[in-house]
């Protein structure tokens, strides 16, 4: 944050005196600020509550309403103050953001009201400090979900189709939301009916029917009315096949569809029939064929398309898989232990059922789950003692993990969400660090290209953010001094690796880019490098991170060009470069450096070199970098 930079900058400059005896070249001249920058106190009246603050405090974030010239619209000449007709309680938090650099979310406020205030003052909510970020996100998600539910409920009643949708899209939509059209609903219920019919038929065909005339044995109905059942089966399978093919056709992404669980279930439900058709009536194979018929029971899972509850159950089991696995593992351990004990306890008895340890498994399981079939009972005293211990421990082993699994489910569910969020945040953070590191090099190189050799004076109109710009220039001057001391120059990673490969590139030509209009030369010998330098800077927002990433912001001055993005047009446009506050778009580039995390909350470790909160400019499209000549007074 500029405040931190501004505070320590004179000190860093002073410390640069230590480089002077070592410097091989003369130091470059520093930027001189002609205007004396006396700080003044501003009065801000928010619905009657009067706030006062330094002008510099507000200037820290030029991307916001209070930091830019936009606040002049609210200036009241008579009372010499800025008047805002907004919530004064909320304003307190907004102002604290300017002061400390951290945005906090007041827990008692409504999330939407807070968001609206932030939007009014031009502050992006992404910079909420870590202490309040989770709460903010949770509340926001809750709110959004509630709104989404409401809108969904609305949508369920009347849903106009998007215009110009193909047949395929309409078909897919009909499959996914059966309530959209009557045809879809009819189809939905028909398939449901046939699933039920198929399952019932599978069940009924094994029930013994009255035997055929002249035979004593009871036949299962499936064999008595084999033709009828076969016809019913065929009909169901035909319907299911038709449905599957239609879904496959309508699916927006066929590969994804084919890999989804529901489609696998569909396939498994209908495959046995076709395999049965293909396979010949053979004694050896019919055994396998019978096994295949078992798979027909999977048709019952097709109901999960019709039932939300089944889907939730499936998800629960999936997410609790590790817990369940652990339960299974501990059960297995207990079973093995007790089975072994029981086997050896009962070994002596004649005619015992405990013939082997695996045989004792059955006894252990039945006892531990308190089933107690009674088909295997211990006879010896030792066996009975251990048997009772087994049943007692069974109660505990089975009963205890169940509430744990239930609570685990809710915990895991929330944890997963948070872990995903953090992973995504971490990725973004790393990307931002990399980008910002590049950004600082680019910023410095740009400063040099603008001719940092000359003394830069500042236009009056630039005063609104002149302070920060001045800081930027001083910082770049400092980096320049370091270069002169060591007689080496800063480059970015890419150019460095390139230079390692192509050593023959001369100094001047390789370094000049086509951007600089002052030199007026369009060197295209290294167009790739130049283009890379030419562009875009970190349009990234920053937030104070938990592992104390320290950030320093530099301002990048860009002029957005609406015209064609070819480089040849750059020269043409540089004639009319005039610096106006209104024309410029400021993008703040953040340089994030990971610092060693403060394990002990050291008091003297100041919280605010953790500089947060640089705001994203709303225009995030790539900028064309043009040299901005800052004209003198």
């Amino acid at each position, binding site marked *: 944050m500029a*405040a*931190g*930079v501004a*505070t*320590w*900058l*004179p*000190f*860093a*400059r*002073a410390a*640069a*005196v*230590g*480089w*002077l*005896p*070592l410097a*091989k*070249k*003369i*130091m470059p001249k*520093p930027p001189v600020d002609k205007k004396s920058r006396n*700080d003044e106190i501003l009065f801000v009246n928010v619905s009657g509550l009067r706030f006062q603050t330094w002008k510099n405090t507000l200037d820290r974030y030029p991307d916001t309403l209070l930091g830019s010239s936009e606040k002049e619209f609210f200036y009241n000449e008579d009372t010499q103050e800025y008047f805002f007709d907004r919530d004064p309680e909320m304003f307190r938090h907004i102002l604290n953001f300017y002061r400390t650099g951290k945005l906090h979310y007041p827990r008692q406020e409504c999330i939407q009201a807070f968001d609206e205030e932030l939007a009014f003052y031009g502050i992006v909510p992404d910079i909420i400090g870590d202490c309040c970020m989770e709460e903010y996100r949770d509340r926001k998600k809750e709110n959004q979900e509630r709104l989404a539910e409401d809108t969904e409920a609305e949508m369920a009643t009347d849903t106009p189709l998007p215009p110009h949708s193909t047949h395929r899209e309409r078909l897919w939509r009909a499959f996914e939301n059966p309530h959209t059209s009557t045809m879809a609903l009819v189809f939905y219920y028909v398939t449901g009916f046939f699933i039920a019919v198929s399952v019932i038929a599978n069940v009924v065909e094994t029930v013994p029917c009255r035997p055929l005339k002249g035979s004593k044995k009871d036949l299962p109905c499936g064999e008595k009315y084999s033709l009828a059942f076969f016809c019913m089966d065929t009909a169901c399978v035909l319907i299911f096949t038709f449905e599957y093919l239609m879904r496959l056709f309508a699916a927006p992404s066929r590969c994804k569809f084919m890999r989804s669980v529901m489609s696998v279930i569909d396939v498994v439900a209908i495959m046995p029939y076709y395999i049965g058709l293909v396979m010949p009536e053979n004694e050896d194979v019919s055994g396998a064929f019978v096994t295949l018929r078992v798979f027909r029971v999977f048709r019952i899972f097709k109901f999960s398309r019709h039932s939300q509850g089944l889907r939730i159950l499936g998800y629960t089991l999936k997410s609790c898989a590790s817990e369940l696995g*652990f339960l299974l593992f*501990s059960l297995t351990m*207990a079973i093995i*232990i007790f089975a072994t004990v029981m086997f050896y306890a009962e070994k002596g008895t004649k005619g015992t059922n405990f013939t082997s340890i695996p045989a004792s498994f059955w006894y252990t399981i039945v006892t531990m789950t308190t089933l107690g079939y009674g088909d295997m009972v211990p006879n010896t005293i030792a066996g009975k003692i251990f048997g009772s*211990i087994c049943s007692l*421990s069974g109660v*505990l*082993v089975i009963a*205890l993990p169940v509430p744990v699994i239930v609570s685990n489910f809710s915990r895991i569910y929330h944890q997963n969400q948070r872990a995903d969020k953090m992973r995504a945040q971490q990725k973004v953070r790393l990307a931002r660090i990399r980008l910002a*590191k590049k950004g600082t090099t680019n910023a410095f190189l740009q400063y040099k290209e603008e001719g940092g050799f000359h003394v830069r004076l500042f236009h009056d109109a630039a005063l609104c953010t002149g302070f920060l710009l001045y800081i930027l220039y001083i*910082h770049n001057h*400092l*980096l320049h001094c*370091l*270069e002169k001391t*060591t007689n*080496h*120059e*800063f480059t970015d*990673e890419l*150019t*460095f690796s390139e*230079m390692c490969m192509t050593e023959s590139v001369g100094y001047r030509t390789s370094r000049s880019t086509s951007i600089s209009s002052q030199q007026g030369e369009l060197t295209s010998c290294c167009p790739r490098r130049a283009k890379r330098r030419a562009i875009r800077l970190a349009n990234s927002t920053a937030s104070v991170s938990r592992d104390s990433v320290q*950030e*320093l912001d530099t301002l990048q001055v860009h002029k957005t060009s609406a015209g064609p993005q070819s480089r040849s047009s750059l020269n043409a446009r540089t004639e009319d470069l005039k610096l106006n506050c209104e024309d410029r778009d400021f993008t703040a580039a953040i*340089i994030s*450096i990971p*610092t060693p995390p403060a394990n*002990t*909350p*050291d*008091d*003297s*470790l*100041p919280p605010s*070199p953790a500089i947060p909160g640089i705001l994203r400019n709303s225009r995030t499209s790539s900028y064309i970098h043009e040299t901005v000549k800052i004209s003198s007074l």
Partner: protein
Amino acid sequence: MGVVFGTFSMHTKQVTFRTDNVDDELEMTMVCHRPEGLEQLEAQTNFTKQELQVLYRGFKNECPSGVVNEETFKHIYAQFFPHGDASTYAHYLFNAFDTRNDGSIKFEDFVMGLSTLLRGTVREKLEWTFHLYDINRDGFINKEEMTEIVRAIYDMMGKYTYPALKGDVPKQHVDVFFEKMDKNKDGVVTLEEFVLACQEDENMMRSMQLFENVM
């Protein structure tokens, strides 16, 4: 049976008894340093009252407790020079500012140092720089100390430089420096030699004037 119960241990959490540490931390946060009065500082340094006020406000904002320790120092420098590793140079700088050698910089130290560097005479600045280079405070700069400092400065440049850092560039730099500074070729540079050599160096004198009177 014990094994069965042992398997449930996955859900027990480690409870650490941290009350003692918490008390210590609370004590530490109470420590706060206030600088001497404004008039005294104005008398001791070359800054005006307004400048001192601005400096202190910034300082207090960054370090509410009133002291800067070495870690913070390294942080600050890392922000300014993100390309490379500024921690070694920051360490030497810290020692140079910390005139009392107590491991922390108070506002007075900060302001006195700044006053010398920004508003002092050429001699004072050179003396300060000499003390910066003289790591062990024995009154002489030998080659090892100088090499350390130069390496620290080159570390700040980072890896990606043009031209690339090949060979032992810091050592060459130190050799050149000693050529210039060590008049009697005895292998060490004394304060007088240093001041004399620097005053003869036109470029350096001009550069030094650049850092005058800036805030």
